[in-house]
């Protein structure tokens, strides 16, 4: 198994795993968003969905998948980031990092340089989010009611809007970068993947934050 160890400990191999785990997490986000958007339905459909989810196999696959993908993605990125930081050497540049000759948009360049730090923000966000709506609620019972109650508080609504925007920002750079790290580059399809990543980023940012905004503004009845 030494070839496997050599592959996965090399920076190229680690980038490959970070890309794969990242795409896995994006797949999870799509399913998560589709489930969450059912909260807009007026009757008991969200609670029924939550019960079906928790009684079925999907939750087990999701839990195991996330327990593998999350630590793998974060752990490997931290390992890479520590080496990347050392690679600059003891003396850094005096001139600011904002100098660039890139023709790409400002947002894209900024995203590529801040995705790592937004990832750390997301780590904190996810920890609070999972505690609040999963671990803290061992009884799913009326999950919809619990969500409506929590997000009616403007502080929590802002917290979730910021978390949604951070998720979008992370995916904005991460999605297309993942395909590049996996070795997929093509004159026609790479630009298409860049656009698809932007669409996914907007979908996550708007989709998830719309729930928090709807609850805090419209104050729907529990």
């Amino acid at each position, binding site marked *: 198994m030494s070839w496997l160890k050599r592959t996965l400990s090399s920076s190229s191999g680690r980038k490959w795993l970070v890309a794969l785990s990242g795409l896995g997490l994006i797949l999870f986000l799509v399913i998560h968003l589709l489930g969450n958007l059912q909260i807009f339905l007026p009757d008991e459909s969200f609670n029924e969905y939550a019960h079906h989810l928790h009684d079925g196999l999907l939750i087990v696959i999701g839990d195991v998948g996330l327990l593998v993908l999350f630590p793998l993605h974060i752990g490997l990125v931290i390992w890479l980031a520590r080496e990347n930081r050392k690679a*600059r050497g003891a003396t850094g*540049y005096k001139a*600011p990092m904002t*100098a660039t000759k890139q023709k790409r948009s400002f947002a894209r360049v900024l995203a590529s340089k801040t995705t790592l730090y937004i990832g750390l923000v997301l780590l904190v966000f996810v920890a609070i989010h999972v505690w609040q709506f999963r671990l803290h609620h061992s009884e799913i019972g009326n999950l919809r009611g619990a969500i409506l109650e929590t997000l009616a508080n403007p502080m929590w609504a802002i917290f979730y809007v910021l978390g949604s925007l951070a998720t979008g920002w992370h995916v904005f750079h991460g999605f297309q970068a993942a395909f*590049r790290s996996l070795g997929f580059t093509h004159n026609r399809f790479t630009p298409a993947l860049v656009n698809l990543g932007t669409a996914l980023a907007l979908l996550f940012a708007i989709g998830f934050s719309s729930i928090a905004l709807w609850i805090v503004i419209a104050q729907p009845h529990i």
Partner: protein
Amino acid sequence: MSESTISVTLEVWRQPGTDAAGRFETYQLDGVSTDSSFLEMLDMLNQKLLTEGKEPVAFEHDCREGICGSCGFVINGNPHGPDRGTTVCQLHMRRFKSGAKLTLEPWRAKAFPVLRDLMVDRSAFDKIMAAGGYNSVNVGNAPDANSIPIGQDAASEAFDAAACIGCGACVAACKNASANLFTSAKIGHLAMLPQGQPERYTRTVAMLDMAEDLGFGACSWTQECEAACPKEISVKWISRAQRDYVKGRVVKGI
């Protein structure tokens, strides 16, 4: 366009040797011709420093035609200065306004120790090349031209990568001081051609592993390297090398 002269303020990194401490020194230079190249402007500064009995600023240069890869330092945060697709020797002073303040720094990378002032030791690139950037063939006489048919599109694309002059701007521009653009360009041009196929995967693995061992960082896809590259080499080569690396390790069992 008629010649005119400008004044510039230069903030230059001065470091007497690799292990010595460095610091910025500020110099005022007047009467700089807008027709002069950036290096001619530095020659003028050095002449001034010599006549004042001071140490001239050390910087590397050779051809001054933008093709040798010797020159290069960071001007106000941009490797090779503010223009795309050029080396610092092909940058001209007409690009700057009179009174401009220019901060000159050497390439910053752990694997590129400063030798003196703006000069860095780039022998790490030689070590990456020695790890596999060649074809192992016994060459006798020159083979007949066109004895191996290669399509024009493949030859052109290979040349895009082969245009790399090994200046090190990609490393300097990268937030991770990664050598991936240099390494993958050297891997990529051989991977495009039939002569490069027998050692394609061993070469890819050996060169990327060597770059990592030398202390260069990994790729975060900020694409700063491509923007800084005087030959405008595409980041697609990094992606292709990445594919060949994993294929070499996993499928070919290297």
